[in-house]
Every structure is written in C-alpha cells, then in structure tokens.
C-alpha cells in the first residue's frame, strides 16, 4: 500500500512573542496570546523564503530515507507565498536535491491546504506506478498586515513527505476531501497582504470543512476517534484546532503532540506537515493518525494513516522539537527589518 516513505521539517530559528507585537500597537499582549492561544511565532531570516525552507525540509526527508535524486519522479510544492508569481518553486527544489531532469514538477496553491492536495496527487501517480516516489511539500512564509489580527499568528515553516510504495513508514489507508466555494480569506494578485472575513473564517469556513472532512474520513475508514493515537488538523491559531478536535470526539492526549501553533504560530501550508512531522518524530509502529488539513476558499483534505515497523529503522534525529528549542527571540524592530516592513525609501 502507498504511504509516507519519509518526512522532513524546517522551522526558522527566530521567533517573536505575541506580547512584543501587541506592545507596538498598544494592545494587551497577554489577552491576545490567551485569546488566540498563540504565545510566539516563527520569523524567517532575510535570506529565508518558501524555496529555502522547502529545500531544507526536503533534504532532511531525503537523508532520512537514504534516497538519491534519481529515485524521485515528481515534486509538487503547495504554498500561498511562492517567491515567484511565474517560475516554479518545485524546479529549484528538484535541482537542489539532484532530482533533475527526469521528473515532473509543479507548484500548487489552495491557501493553507495546497500541500495536502500535493500529497493526494502523489498518491495517485505512485498508485498508478507512474513514478517510484513523489514529493509533496507544504510551506509558507505568510504575512499579516502590520496591526492586523493576522500579524499575531502568520509565521513561517514547512514540511515534506515522500510518497511511495517501498519502505513505507506510514501507510495512507484512506484520503478524502470536502470542498466548497467559501470566500473566508484571500489575497488578490499583486497584493502584499491577505484579507479575511474576521469571524466568518470560523464556523462556515474552518469548522464546517474540518468537521465534515473529519467525519467523512472516519466513515470511510469505519473508525472512531478512540481508534487513533494522534490527531492533527490545520491550526490557524491555537484555539480552532482544539475546538475542532474536541467536537470530533478527540482528547488532549491525541491532539497535543501535533498542536504547534501556540509556540510557532500559523505556518499556513506548513501547519499540518509540521504537526504530522512532530507526531512521526515520536510515533511507534502500529500507531494510527488522523490528519485533516484546511485551506481557505475553501476545502479540507483528510488522511487516515497507520505507522509501520519501518519507522523504527529510520534516523529520526533533527526533530521538530529540536527546531523549536533552538529558536531565539527577536524584537519587533528586527522582525520588521527581516520581514520587509521597513520603508527604505531610495536607499535600496
């Protein structure tokens, strides 16, 4: 059965605390942190973007699987912050892992779930034996406009999964999607910052899609919440995923490992990948995982996974927790400099 052959993750090594952002705008930092359940968020350095994060996460995945570039037949990168409007991120990743030229590559966009759509695409072409292994990447370096609620959570990070049929560490038993036209969050062509519908992003958007997709995937698998060891959902803040998981019938023990947003913010397309990576970092053979992504616009992709004996053979050092623990706090001035929020006038 097809599934995850390897996985990798990358989180930038800088972070800013919610209270520091709030102090710039005269807001109550502890109230914002508590309301969002986001206490700090990752910040990419001036030389980090979706491409560099994708390459680092993918190189880690390749190293873990001991795969060479010639073993890769497809690379799909899902993001809403690709550095180029026209020119693929995936070709640069392919070159950086030595996978060119005998492969297919493309970039995906579906808000925060573009990466999981890439997983489903890889499952299709691997299942049809079109390629030996396909790489799906979910990564973002999202921006929130200064002073906007999104500024407290929009962060950076990403993950990679390699999908194949051999040496699978986690089988993907079932996958399904739930998709509607729901304009809860968007960014028009050429605009620097996204816009959102405030509370409209909640009930009719995130919760409706995640809940429906979660129920559909469990119906498909004939499973119940108690059959799973771990659950991870998209996490635009630290509160939505907890409420969704509890409403679906999961407990804190099941969702706490994959819930990273309170410490690293919302990594958008990277969120489910990083949560899943944190789970795979510690998972044991036989563990069962439910993953439900969400992308505004809107849709959810659900996955039912079972960890195999192969995971015990994998070198799982360089964990997500290692990456989080090395993050160093920066102030708002440095954050503004790193994220291009300073008006440099004619000096640059």
């Amino acid at each position, binding site marked *: 059965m097809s599934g995850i052959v390897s996985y990798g993750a990358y989180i930038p090594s800088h972070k800013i605390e919610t209270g520091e952002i709030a102090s710039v705008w005269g807001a109550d930092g502890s109230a914002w942190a508590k309301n969002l359940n986001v206490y700090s968020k990752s910040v990419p350095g001036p*030389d980090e973007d979706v491409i*560099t994060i994708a390459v680092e996460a993918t190189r880690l995945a390749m190293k873990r699987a001991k795969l060479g570039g010639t073993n890769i037949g497809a690379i799909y990168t899902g993001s809403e912050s690709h550095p180029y409007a026209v020119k693929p991120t995936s070709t640069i990743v392919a070159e950086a892992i030595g996978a060119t030229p005998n492969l297919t590559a493309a970039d995906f966009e579906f808000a925060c779930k573009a990466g999981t759509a890439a997983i489903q695409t890889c499952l299709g072409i691997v299942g049809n034996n079109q390629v030996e292994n396909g790489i799906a990447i979910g990564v973002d370096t999202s921006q929130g406009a200064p002073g906007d609620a999104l500024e407290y959570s929009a962060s950076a990070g990403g993950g990679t999964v390699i999908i194949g049929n051999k040496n699978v560490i986690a089988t993907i038993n079932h996958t399904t999607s739930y998709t509607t036209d729901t304009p809860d969050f968007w960014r028009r062509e050429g605009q620097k910052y996204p816009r959102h519908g405030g509370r409209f992003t909640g009930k009719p958007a995130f919760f409706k899609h995640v809940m429906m997709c979660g129920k559909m995937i469990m119906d498909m698998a004939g499973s119940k919440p108690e059959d799973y060891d771990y659950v991870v959902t998209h996490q635009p803040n630290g509160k939505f995923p907890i409420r969704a998981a509890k409403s679906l019938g999961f407990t804190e023990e099941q969702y706490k490992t994959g819930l990273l947003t309170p410490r690293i913010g919302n990594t958008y397309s990277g969120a489910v990948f990083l949560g899943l990576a944190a789970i795979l970092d510690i998972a044991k053979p036989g563990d069962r995982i439910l993953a439900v992504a969400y992308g505004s616009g809107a849709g959810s992709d659900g996955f039912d996974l079972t960890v195999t004996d192969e995971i015990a053979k994998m070198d799982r050092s360089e964990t997500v927790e290692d990456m989080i623990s090395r993050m160093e706090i920066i102030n708002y001035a440095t954050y503004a400099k790193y994220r291009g929020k300073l008006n440099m006038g004619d000096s640059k």
Partner: protein
Amino acid sequence: MSVPRFWRELDTRYNLIGSYCKITDTYHYPRRSFNPEAGRESIGSMEDYQFKGTGTVVTPTVVHQAQTGYEMFGPYCMAIIELDEGPRITSQIVDCRPDTVKSGMRVKSVFRKLGEDSESGILHYGTKFILFGNDIDDELDEDSIDDVEL
C-alpha cells in the same frame, strides 16, 4: 550577474559541486577542469565531487558596513571556511550573533537566498553556513563594537 551565468553555476552553488583530482588525490572548489599542481596530466582526471558541506572556521570577520543587498543582515559574519575535504571557501555564517563566531568552530552548509538581480529580477539561491556542535560564548566581544569606524 547575468541570468545565464548564474544558471551555469547552479549546481556549484546549490549543492557544493566541485572537483576531485585522481592524480593528486585532492579536492577543489569551485569546479576545475585542470589541477595546476598536477599539470597536463590532470586533464581528463578531474571528477565532479559533491562536498559533504561540513567544515571548520579558519578566520571570521564581522561586517558592519553591509554590502549592497545585505543591509537587512547588518552586522553579519563572513568567514573563510575549510571544508572537511580540504578546500577553503568564503561564506556568510547565519543564524547566530556574528561576534560569537570564532576560529576553529564547526559549521555546516544550509540552503539560503544569496540575493536578487532587482525587485523584478531573478532570485539567486545557494549555500551559506551555520554553526553546529559548538559551545557558544555569549559574552559580548567589546572590541567588535569599539573598532567600528564611522
């Protein structure tokens, strides 16, 4: 830098591809088709080699007057690094306070953005280095600030 020139050197920059001389059993970076030490004999004896990406800082310096395109880093560390296979290269060391980098520290390569032609131009990616496996002395080096000439 012209787009074709950068494109021709992609693998050298992305993946630290250099050369191995079978005659002298030595490694070279960037790629060479000829080893001056071995002379004519080395023609046809140079093989592509991908460096492991680990090395040691030979000598670091802190740049306070940032080069164009590097203003957002300032101050930042540049260093001569000796790769484990032997060649020395000059690179920026990132993700650390620049004054904490000392000779003898271990470094490993990371994939980073090197620059861009312009706001609408091509983006340049390649290799930089980060510290790893070192005991960092967080005490501020007083000389690093006093020596700045304004």
